[in-house]
């Protein structure tokens, strides 16, 4: 390995899961220069998945979800201060407190934030909340401890559904409003979306699909209820806005990078593209904020809001930051995520939205124990297990080898029918919540501005 890439100054902007794992990998691979981690939250890195599960159930305190380190990173930590700009020519990151951090190589891992309720006055009502950070979770958990009369969850993606599940488990009345035809349909398609709707209702959720929340009503600054597009209204003292995530790219507006609402575009080796589509060699991207081409999915540019992707992409980015060209690796990890809600363990490998058909390959929807396999133009592209975690490794192998779809029947737990049906993945535009997996190859809402002279 060349000496120069092991030395110098590396700045990582974003001190969450991806930023931490990248820092550790840099040191693991022999980086001996100075390392600075910048994070806008005052807390050291913590784990977000428990926030919508253990924390809301009252089993774990929000301040106790810190991530364990794999090793000492010998870094300077600048926590509680956001990066507000990037000078790509002077190679400096500008911080909100005025400090300038010079770098030789930069890793962008600024992730996402919760999409706020669009009406600022209603969003400011006491009782209207989002869930993304540990502070958010602490506030919501405190409200739940006080025993709300009814919780309204706006948006039935994974986060919204997990919140609803925790609330029902604690015995609170819950209304879930989703613009799409069913919960989880944006990530898992029609068949499993219908199952999710059945399960939510069986657990006592007042689930309202095909409606939007037209207003949140308040009195004396406190939330008292909501009105829906079908004319109905409810009373509620908590409304959790679970409309998906916004990528933290505003600070890069003048950096000349291919950065925008859909994330920061990078190559398979995590190197950022500039606004002309030319790859940089000193700016890298990892985690929720990255969008990258994936060969298993026809080089579609993917943006994945997944825990596992943050770890895997951070490791590849860090490796490539300290390795000369021929030793660099592509980020090829098969996307995977999990969710637990309403007593079900849902696990996914591949990209279910990258599909035209789906088949229940093992088990059945009726038993609520199954593996659904997704195909696109005759090959396997994804599998989702419901209370069938042990089988997913097998299907991951099928995805990696582009095995034919529908797959041959497994030895165990054969399905009743086994006939593929349309996977019925709706356009994200018809849903309340943003997609956690975004196929972002075509960006019709953005136009490239070629010349920018200030």
């Amino acid at each position: 390995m060349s000496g120069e890439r092991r030395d110098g100054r590396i700045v990582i902007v974003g001190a969450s899961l991806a930023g931490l794992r990248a820092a550790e990998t840099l040191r693991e691979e022999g980086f001996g220069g100075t390392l600075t981690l910048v994070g806008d939250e005052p807390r050291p890195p913590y784990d977000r998945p428990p926030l919508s599960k253990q924390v809301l159930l009252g089993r774990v305190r929000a301040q106790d979800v810190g991530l364990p380190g794999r090793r000492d990173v010998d870094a300077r930590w600048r926590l509680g201060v956001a990066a507000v700009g990037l000078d790509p020519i002077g190679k400096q990151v500008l911080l909100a407190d005025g400090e300038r951090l010079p770098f030789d190589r930069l890793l962008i891992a600024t992730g996402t934030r919760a999409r706020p309720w669009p009406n600022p006055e209603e969003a400011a009502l006491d009782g209207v909340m989002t869930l993304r950070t540990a502070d958010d979770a602490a506030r919501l958990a405190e409200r739940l401890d006080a025993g709300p009369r009814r919780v309204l969850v706006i948006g039935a993606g994974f986060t919204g559904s997990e919140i609803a599940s925790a609330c029902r488990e604690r015995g609170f009345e819950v209304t879930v409003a989703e613009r799409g035809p069913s919960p989880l349909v944006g990530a898992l398609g029609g068949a499993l979306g219908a199952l999710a709707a059945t399960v939510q209702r069986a657990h006592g959720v007042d689930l309202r699909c095909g409606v939007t929340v037209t207003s949140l009503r308040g009195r004396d600054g406190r939330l008292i209820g909501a009105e829906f597009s079908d004319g109905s209204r409810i009373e509620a003292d908590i409304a959790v806005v679970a409309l998906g995530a916004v990528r933290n790219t505003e600070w890069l507006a003048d950096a000349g990078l291919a950065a925008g609402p859909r994330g920061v575009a990078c190559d398979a080796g995590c190197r950022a593209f500039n606004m002309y589509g030319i790859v940089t060699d000193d700016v890298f991207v990892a985690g929720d904020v990255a969008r990258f081409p994936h060969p298993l999915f026809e080089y579609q540019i993917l943006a994945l809001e997944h825990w596992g992707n943050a770890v895997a992409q951070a490791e590849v980015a860090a490796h490539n930051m300290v390795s000369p060209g021929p030793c660099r690796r592509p980020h090829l990890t098969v996307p995977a995520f999990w969710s637990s809600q309403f007593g079900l363990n849902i696990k996914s490998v591949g990209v279910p939205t990258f599909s035209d058909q789906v088949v229940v390959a093992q088990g059945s929807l009726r038993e609520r124990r199954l593996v659904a396999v997704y195909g696109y133009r005759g090959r396997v592209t994804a599998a989702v297990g419901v209370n069938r975690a042990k089988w997913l490794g097998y299907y991951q192998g099928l995805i990696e080898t582009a095995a034919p779809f529908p797959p041959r029947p497994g030895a165990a737990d054969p399905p009743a029918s086994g006939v593929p049906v349309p996977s019925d993945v709706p356009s994200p535009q018809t849903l309340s919540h943003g997609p956690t997996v975004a196929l972002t190859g075509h960006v019709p809402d953005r136009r490239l501005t070629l010349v920018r002279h200030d």
Partner: protein
Amino acid sequence: MQIVVDLNRCQSYAQCAFLAPQVFELHGEEALMYTPAVPDDQGERVRRAAAACPVQAILVGERAGARVR
């Protein structure tokens, strides 16, 4: 001591739930729930659970960034 479980990797063998039931438990049939901040008196059990995990999904360590400078 702090832990995190890679739940993509976890296949719900539940060895951890037998070895350190105060820290790990199955929620429903196979969803693992755990306590990220391990109580002091559970450290040894958690280390054993991490070692016994058939898919090696449990990371045990000190809290990252705790000694921020």
